[in-house]
């Protein structure tokens, strides 16, 4: 049986807003297998982004365990986590989060800097990725000189820069019009196929869920519909 790349065990997350405790996740059990394309769906405030942050090791749970490649992430130090994020996980955000003072090319090269990859190789890889997303002739442009769709495509290229095992995307089309959104999703799926990683997308848009192989619905911090049966392997569906 294939090992899950990421496994969540009874995950709870409580945010403290002033003196009030707000539970965002209330006991999530989840397994994601290598190579799959999974969508997490839910209304806003359902806890789906919080869940995604847990999967991406950007945040730690209040309770429960997260296993990445069978290793308990709670045991990792802060810098070990950063290293893992850099090496194994790519991120795509709703707000793109590109560095405004760097060109498209430089933005894509950033994650590779922290992996100690030399400049020539970084450039080669970044140029390759940018030409894949159709921005070959805009690599020197700053984010402010690009359209929203183009920015998100740069962000996708950045997420795939280090050939991560897992790419997570938080409402990747949330800030885009429908045609740019479609374009972005097509590129995401194309990359997912080419690079053979695992892709997890959070969205509230049912159109997007159509691209994926598996959908988790989340409501009030719980998974309400889960058709993953024990022993089933997603990518064989």
């Amino acid at each position, binding site marked *: 049986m294939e090992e899950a790349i990421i496994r969540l065990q009874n995950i709870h997350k409580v945010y403290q807003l002033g003196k009030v405790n707000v539970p965002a996740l209330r006991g999530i059990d989840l397994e994601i297998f290598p190579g799959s394309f999974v969508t997490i769906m839910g209304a806003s405030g359902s806890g789906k982004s919080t869940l995604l*942050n847990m999967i991406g090791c950007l945040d730690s749970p209040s309770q429960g365990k997260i296993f990445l490649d069978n290793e308990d992430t709670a045991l990792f130090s*802060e810098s070990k986590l950063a290293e893992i994020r*850099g090496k194994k996980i790519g991120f795509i955000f709703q707000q793109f989060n590109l560095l405004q003072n760097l060109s498209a090319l430089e933005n894509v090269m950033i994650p590779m800097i*922290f992996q100690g990859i030399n400049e020539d190789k970084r450039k080669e890889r970044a140029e390759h990725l940018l030409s894949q997303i159709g921005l070959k002739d805009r690599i020197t442009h700053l984010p402010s000189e690009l359209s929203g769709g183009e920015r998100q495509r740069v962000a996708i290229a950045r997420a795939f820069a*280090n050939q991560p095992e897992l790419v997570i995307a938080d409402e990747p089309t949330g800030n885009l019009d429908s045609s740019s959104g479609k374009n972005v999703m097509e590129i995401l799926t194309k990359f997912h196929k080419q690079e053979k990683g695992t892709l997890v997308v959070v969205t509230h848009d049912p159109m997007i869920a159509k691209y994926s192989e598996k959908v988790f619905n989340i409501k009030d911090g719980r998974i309400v519909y889960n058709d993953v049966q024990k022993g089933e392997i997603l990518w064989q569906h």
Partner: protein
Amino acid sequence: MATLIEYFKLAFKNLKTRQLRNWLTILGIVVGVFLVITLISLSGGIRDTIMKQLKSLGGDVIIVLPGSMDSPMSLVGGEQLSKEDLNIIKKVKSVDVVLPMLYSSKIMRYKNEQKIVFLTGIPWNEGIEILTSFQGWSLSQGKWPGSGKRELVIGNLVAKEDFFGKEIKPGEEATINGKTFKIVGILDSLGSKTDDTAVYLDLTIFQQITGDRDGGAQAAMVKIEEGVNVDKVAKDIEEALDEVRKRRRGEDVSSFSVLTSDKMGNIVGGIMGIIQASVIAFATIAIFVGGLGIMNSMFTAVRERTREIGLLKAVGAKNNAVISIFLIEAGIIGFIGGMGGIVLGLIVAKTIELYGQIYPMFYLEAYMPVGLIIFSLLFSILIGCLSGYFPARRAAKLKPTEALRSHE
């Protein structure tokens, strides 16, 4: 090392954005460092100039002045050393020659121009040798005046065109107190503007034209025998003068000062030390206030970029990497600010020095040891780094999600 270069590149790119803020921060450092450099280099320059003039006195010469060092006003007042005092000094063991000197500001007329000059009477017969061999006097033109003749030697600046409006040549005539004098010699520079703008003549002639005939002196330059301890002789002179005054005149306060160049150096050094200490204190406050400003703007700058820090952490930057990048940025700001302050400070100090060469009143050499420059530079880099470090560390410690949530 390679990663450090990468961080430097990133830091430079970051600095290129937010230029206005960065330049304002840099300006804050420039002003602080500029203040420190100017204050220290000018006060140091004043000290050096005074010390240099004192050194020109020569080690084997003792100056005896009327009036006590304890009450400085009496040094300026009209007190004189009496003829008797001078004789007592002459009799002290190991004293070789005593040169009584008189001086006074007088109007000198050359052609149709009148100028106030510092007229100094020196007995040429005994004096020339001491002045030439121990004080470094030399003539650039002409000859030394004969004893008892109405002849003048003038300081090199007096001879220059911008003093009387016309360059003075030996052999020309000038009038002082209605008496006509022949200018026979022009001195080489003596190293101090006061000396270079003075006019020298034989002591007896000085006494004649000023009516000062009691044989006293406003100062006495004492040349001692070779190989004798200067301080010992100075002490002997002091004791001899003291004793005579107490015994014969019933005075119990010493109303004279015996100075060696070392002793004067100590006095001046002490005063200048206090001035410099307070200058440094002010400068420290200035740079501290500047530092607070830098910290403030660094704090805001880093806060604004919390989201960027979150992103860097999400794509694999460790806390140390984030802090390093911000530290490099802050250090560069400190470095540029420091350099700016140093350059500006040196320009101002040099300008004042240049001004002093044109207007003797302000004569001074700017003091700028390499140590001061290096120190200022390191200090401003340090201030920059410190003020960047704390906010960056705080931001770097946030979880990536928290940092990413913050609004720009």
